[in-house]
């Protein structure tokens, strides 16, 4: 039986690391300078968040953060499939960011009350930073979601495409009952309900339509090490420099 704390931390940290890397791929390519900076800044934040969480895992006896981040293969990662998908066009990356960060802010707000005090401390720090991510996503979803036909078409297509993967964020593991019973976290079902309320509120202010969730099969697997073909190439690229000399002192 996996330690519920480690189970929870790996899922949290891997989501941050992988989406952080994907966000960094907008560096130099953003549609406007401010968006280039925004995605690069969110990438930097998320890598910082991943480091804090891998450090907690290290305190629990796991390897050094760099080793954990750069030496595992895809099947050893516990991120959701949502975060590993390629950046696609800006509409896709924006929609993924909107759906992911709404869940992430709620997740860390709840974790701020975790019975596991070191994680609660990290969560209290991270939730303040995540507010800016949600503010950024909401601003652009509202603005583009009420603009031209082309923008609406692209965003609606992105929403339809990402939603099944976004529902995969709330995939449970075997440790879920223990995680809730020990007061580590409120649990994925409660989080999903809060998330749906928050994203609906913003989407209702736009011309975008939230598809009927009961008709959608969530894309899971990521929490159990089942990933898309896109994760391993990402890991290879991310760890390319580290693997040249794993003992180098930077």
């Amino acid at each position: 039986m996996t330690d519920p704390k480690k189970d929870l931390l790996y899922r949290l940290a891997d989501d941050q690391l992988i989406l952080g890397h994907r966000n960094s791929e907008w560096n130099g390519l953003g549609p406007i300078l401010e968006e280039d900076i925004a995605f690069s800044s969110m990438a930097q934040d998320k890598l910082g968040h991943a480091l804090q969480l891998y450090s907690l895992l290290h305190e629990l006896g796991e390897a050094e953060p760099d080793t954990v981040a750069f030496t595992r293969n895809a099947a050893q990662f516990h991120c959701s499939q949502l975060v590993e998908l390629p950046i696609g066009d800006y509409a896709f990356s924006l929609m993924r960011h909107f759906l992911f960060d709404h869940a992430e802010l709620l997740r860390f707000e709840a974790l701020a009350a975790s019975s596991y005090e070191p994680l609660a401390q990290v969560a209290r720090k991270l939730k303040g930073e995540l507010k800016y991510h949600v503010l950024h996503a909401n601003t652009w979803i509202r603005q583009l979601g009420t603009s031209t036909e082309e923008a609406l078409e692209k965003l609606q297509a992105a929403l339809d495409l990402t939603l099944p993967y976004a529902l995969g964020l709330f995939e449970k593991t075997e440790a879920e009952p223990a995680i809730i019973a020990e007061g580590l976290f409120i649990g994925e079902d409660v989080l999903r309900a809060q998330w749906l309320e928050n994203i609906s509120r913003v989407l209702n202010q736009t011309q975008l339509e939230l598809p009927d969730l009961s008709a959608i099969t969530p894309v899971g697997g990521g929490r159990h090490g089942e990933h898309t073909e896109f994760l391993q190439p990402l890991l290879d690229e991310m760890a390319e420099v580290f693997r040249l000399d794993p003992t180098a002192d930077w």
Partner: protein
Amino acid sequence: MDESTILSWLDEVKDPEIPVVSLVDLGVIRRVQIGADGHVTVRMTPTFSGCPAMDYMRRDVERVLREHGVPGYTVEMSLEEAWSSNDVTERGRQALREFRLSPPPAHQGIIDLDILEYAECPHCGSHNTELRSPFGPTLCRALHYCHNCRQGFEQFKPV
């Protein structure tokens, strides 16, 4: 050597990305303790968790302790009392204004949209300003625009 002497040394250490504000005025030095054996422990806390300058600040603190001949020291990073922008001192806020960086508005612990969008123009002092982007040249800065003097400016973000 006492704790206030060490704090006065640390006042010489500046934020490498905002070289007019000391770490003490930034509020990132949480505690200085001298043990019975003379061992000095400095506890720091990061402003933003992904801030690349934190490592440099930590090294600068270690360098200052070394240069003042402190024989044994530990510089630790802790989130026990997480940093809030309210921790920037009045002197720090004044230094930010002179650097033409709008200081973070004081808040009561709850950061809502009103706080996030509020900024005082560091050029003309007007509050007729608008948040242009919550992300700027560093993690701790947001981009705003002043409708009074019609200039863009940066703000140290409230968190």
